[in-house]
């Protein structure tokens, strides 16, 4: 258990450092959410529903976490291939899940930069007050959202690898998930058929928990659903990762691009 925890921490820390040094990740997690937040601030300010700009800041921050998870985890195994480290990751006696999981959690953790930058940006330039209704709940809701998205990243990592052009999937899935999970738009405004899709996506519950902790409400249910969804993602991720590993060994395509 101690070895597994040590491996988790090392893998997570190494990947956070590695992603932090990537210009692309800094752009998509720290800079682009600020652009989206600014556009949204102006849209809400100019529109007939000024609402709470903290609502917008938190939504834009979660958009960054999703982007980071989507691009980071979606292309994770492919990147290991390009770097020539996939054979080592699979060849070591440690179960593959223990190697990949810290990496996917790291991609979601890097998304915390976006929450920080959008909150800071809003506070500095748009007078968005950073007053939390339930600070303790907030301290629980934010990591819960990150971990659940990281676990969802595990599913992405192990399924996207089966597609040849996983990056194009990532390009496709950024906006629709932002939309259906209600990060900036109330879900009630969307067509009814999108509702069940939103229920199985981690950002829906992640942002609900964070918003209810920050703006008022009972975030307990959302956090509990996050935990439940995370467990489901973990089970799916274990199975799909095993399937990928077996397929790659059978077809001898592990290192093939």
């Amino acid at each position: 258990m101690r070895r597994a925890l040590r491996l988790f921490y090392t893998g997570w820390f190494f990947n956070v450092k590695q992603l932090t040094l990537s210009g692309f990740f800094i752009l998509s997690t720290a800079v682009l959410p600020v652009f989206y937040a600014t556009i949204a601030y102006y849209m809400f300010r100019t529109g007939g529903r000024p609402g709470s700009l903290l609502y917008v800041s938190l939504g834009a921050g979660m958009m960054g976490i999703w982007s980071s998870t989507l691009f980071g985890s979606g292309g994770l195994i492919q990147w290991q291939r390009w770097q020539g480290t996939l054979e080592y990751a699979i060849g070591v006696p440690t179960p593959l899940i223990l190697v990949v999981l810290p990496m996917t959690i790291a991609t979601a953790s890097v998304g915390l930069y976006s929450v920080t930058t959008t909150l800071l940006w809003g506070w500095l330039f748009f007078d968005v007050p950073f007053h939390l209704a339930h600070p303790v709940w907030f301290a629980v809701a934010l990591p819960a959202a990150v971990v659940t998205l990281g676990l969802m990243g595990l599913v992405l990592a192990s399924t996207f690898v089966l597609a040849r052009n996983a990056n194009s999937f990532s390009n496709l899935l950024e906006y629709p998930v932002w939309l259906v999970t209600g990060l900036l738009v109330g879900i009630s405004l969307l067509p009814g058929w999108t509702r069940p899709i939103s229920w199985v996506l981690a950002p829906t519950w992640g942002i609900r928990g964070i918003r209810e902790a920050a703006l008022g409400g009972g975030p307990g249910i959302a956090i509990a659903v996050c935990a439940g969804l995370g467990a489901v993602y973990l089970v799916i991720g274990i199975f799909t990762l095993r399937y990928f590993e077996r397929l790659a060994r059978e077809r001898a395509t592990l290192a093939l691009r």
Partner: protein
Amino acid sequence: MNSIRVFFIGGYLAYRGLFNWIHWSIYVPTMLGGPLFQILFFAYIGRYAKLRSDEFFVVGNAVQISAMGGIFGMAMTIGGERWTQTLSSILATPANRFALFLGRALPNIANGILVSAFGFLVGWLLLDFSLTPSEIPAIALIVVVSSFACTSFGMMIGAVGLRTRDVFFLANLVIFIFLLFCGVNVPVDSLPGWAQAIGRVLPLTHGIDAARQIAAGASLGHVSGLVQTEAAIGVLYTAFAYALFRFFESSSRRAAALETM
């Protein structure tokens, strides 16, 4: 005659060889799927924020998405020569540089028009947006001019790609600068003065304004000033991009840094 061949055939081959998204399995999700959801995303935020009608967002985003092909396409077809290690061979030829450079823009302009047309189509199919048949030619003209202006800006990014290490970082940033400053989703007059000033010297701002006025019933003559300004911005960026291309070419020769990564 040779320059014309370089312009058309060279541009076409560069597009086929270096536009990495040309395969349908990348092109459809990236160039059509992404923009489709971008339009829906902002239209729904607009509805939620009670800002403007769907028409405002469909027109703004459908014109703006023409920039994707222009910016990323030019980054790939000019800057990409470095990555494929073919830059030295290209620059060793006596080919007319203007034809060589501009020929690469033509397929990207055509792509921008196609993507923009798709944006208008999905806006019409999925949102509360329509154009009368008489408005379509004027909108088409504006899209052509805007796509040209964006591709000109993309040429500049591509030229910078002859020297910088990560041209896609810059290309991504530019797309978001367009989204924020060009009145795509936020009325330009609600932005601060300095942001409006930046928007006025960027491609798209005048094109989007003109397209919105046409969609609201104005005639092409009424917006001709805006269309001419958009075209002039495109010409200026083309000239600047060409100068930058020649500058980087000569300085890279001097420093022997043509294909240094």
